[in-house]
């Protein structure tokens, strides 16, 4: 079966000559449908850069990123934006919720932006799975870190993307909440048949994944 995400010889360098930084140095990875892959690396290993390229947020110097058979960077900027909106779900470390919208509105925003009808039953099911059904009208400023991240998770799941990319999703949470959020993320992703690539610097969290890729100096080892 075709992998849902594939990178071929990805390269991203910054600067040139002696001061050149090889952020991503000839990296090729594959992720199959339904997998939970953790990408572990220390600060500066290139993991965030990798994730940004996987999500089409940053263009590589050379190499390809192929999601669901589509070469991301062969698309025009506008097409890429549409593709990203439909096919990729993001979960960031600092939640990125819209402060003026309440929990429900934040969750269904990407669906609405795409002009699609919101399947209320499906979205409510997700909300119940993450345990936020009694705070739907709350504004992000009244939520705890864990609750904000759950909302972000629901938002990423609701539009049923082909792949979810999470960049240190538990970085701003305390260690107990961290574990909870990752366990919840893992079971939701499995329940809804999604694929998840998660960046983390913490091996304790990475152990929940099906597969761990270690990234060091822009290269994936192991």
């Amino acid at each position, binding site marked *: 079966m075709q992998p849902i995400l594939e990178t071929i010889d990805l390269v991203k360098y910054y600067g040139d000559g002696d001061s050149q930084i090889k952020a991503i140095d000839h990296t090729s990875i594959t992720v199959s449908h339904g997998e939970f892959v953790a990408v572990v690396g220390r600060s500066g290993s290139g993991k965030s850069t990798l994730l940004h390229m996987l999500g089409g947020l940053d263009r590589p110097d050379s190499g390809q990123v192929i999601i669901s058979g589509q070469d991301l960077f062969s698309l025009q900027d506008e097409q890429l934006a549409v593709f990203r909106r439909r096919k990729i779900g993001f979960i960031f470390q600092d939640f990125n919720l819209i402060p003026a919208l309440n929990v429900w509105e934040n969750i269904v925003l990407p669906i609405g932006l795409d002009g699609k009808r919101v399947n209320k039953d499906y979205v409510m099911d997700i909300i119940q799975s993450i345990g936020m059904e009694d705070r739907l009208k709350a504004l992000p400023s009244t939520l705890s870190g864990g609750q904000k991240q759950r909302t972000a998770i629901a938002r990423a799941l609701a539009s049923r993307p082909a792949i979810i990319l999470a960049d240190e999703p538990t970085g701003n949470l305390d260690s107990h909440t961290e574990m909870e959020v990752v366990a919840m993320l893992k079971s939701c992703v499995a329940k809804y*048949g999604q694929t998840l690539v998660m960046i983390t610097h913490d091996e304790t969290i990475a152990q929940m994944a099906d597969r761990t890729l270690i990234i060091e100096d822009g290269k994936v080892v192991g």
Partner: protein
Amino acid sequence: MDGRGVEKMIKTQERGYIWLEQELRKYLGISTAGIAVFFLFLLPAGLPLSYYAALFAVAILANGIWCYLTYRRKYRDYLEISDCLEALETGSYRQKPEADALKTGIRSQMQEQMERVGRAAEVYKKQLEEEKENTKAMITDISHQLKTPVAALGLSLELLGDAQVTEAEKQEFLERGKREVEKLNHLMGTLVNLSRLEADMIRLEPRKAGLKATLVRAVNGIYLKAEEKKIEIEMKEFSDMEIVHDPRWTAEAISNVLDNSVKYSPGGSTISIRVEPMVSYIFIEVEDEGIGIEKSEYQNIFKRFYRGKRPEVEGQEGAGVGLYLVRKIFEEQGGNVCAVPAHRRGTVIRMMLPKKYSAEFAV
């Protein structure tokens, strides 16, 4: 029926969407009638006759063309969807390039949904294949595990039958043989549990039950072994709660964790059990003061048949099945298990059970 009648019948059925044609005729009829009525009311306006007739004809024609073109577009769309669905049904579906799906509109949305259905079908197929491979691998693993103790037992018995062996040596081989049989027994018990769980022969039956009772059950299973090594098991006080779980298998799982803790802890140390309710899960933590686990090994210890490489681990008996079983039991109840670093030395195994049980979690 005569030849021409049959031919006509075949021809009409070939066109396929007869009801679309009927719709076309209906719309054409209604819209033409509407235009006619409109022009009827226009009569008293006193337009020159030729101008009036021309306008009427153009209106009718334009309407006719418009209806027909709409019909044609719908027909093509339906045909495409039907072809796709048929391909899915017969299993000949192939993923098509996504370029069209980047547009908006009903057509591209339908296409996208069909892509998803196609992918879901492929996923099921892949899951079935994986399950088959999994079973094959397990059979190989199990027979491999059994070979060693059986060989050792065979050797002991062979040596027993050797006439040149002294009485004292015979006793030793007898003892060795007995130990191997014990090992085999223990191994078989674990393997039977494992294979039954994998083959879905054991159905976890979660029901609302008190957590304290389950924990007590788990501790009872390991109490004697702990006593032998003078290891103290301390359960931190907590208010009992009723949560949905399978008491028997959850106790078994926690027992497995405690078994590991006792195995790899020095005599005289303490094993503490803590229960902490969080937002969506109940955390059950077992902390020991033993040899600990390297962070880099956290991923591996839950793999089936994995045994640590350290000499302390290799010296102990075990099939590497324990933690794998534990994770499986908790995952099937919608929870999970992980290892977290301890404050000083030792290991903390954190088990999580969901507060709200959902039947779909049993994957």
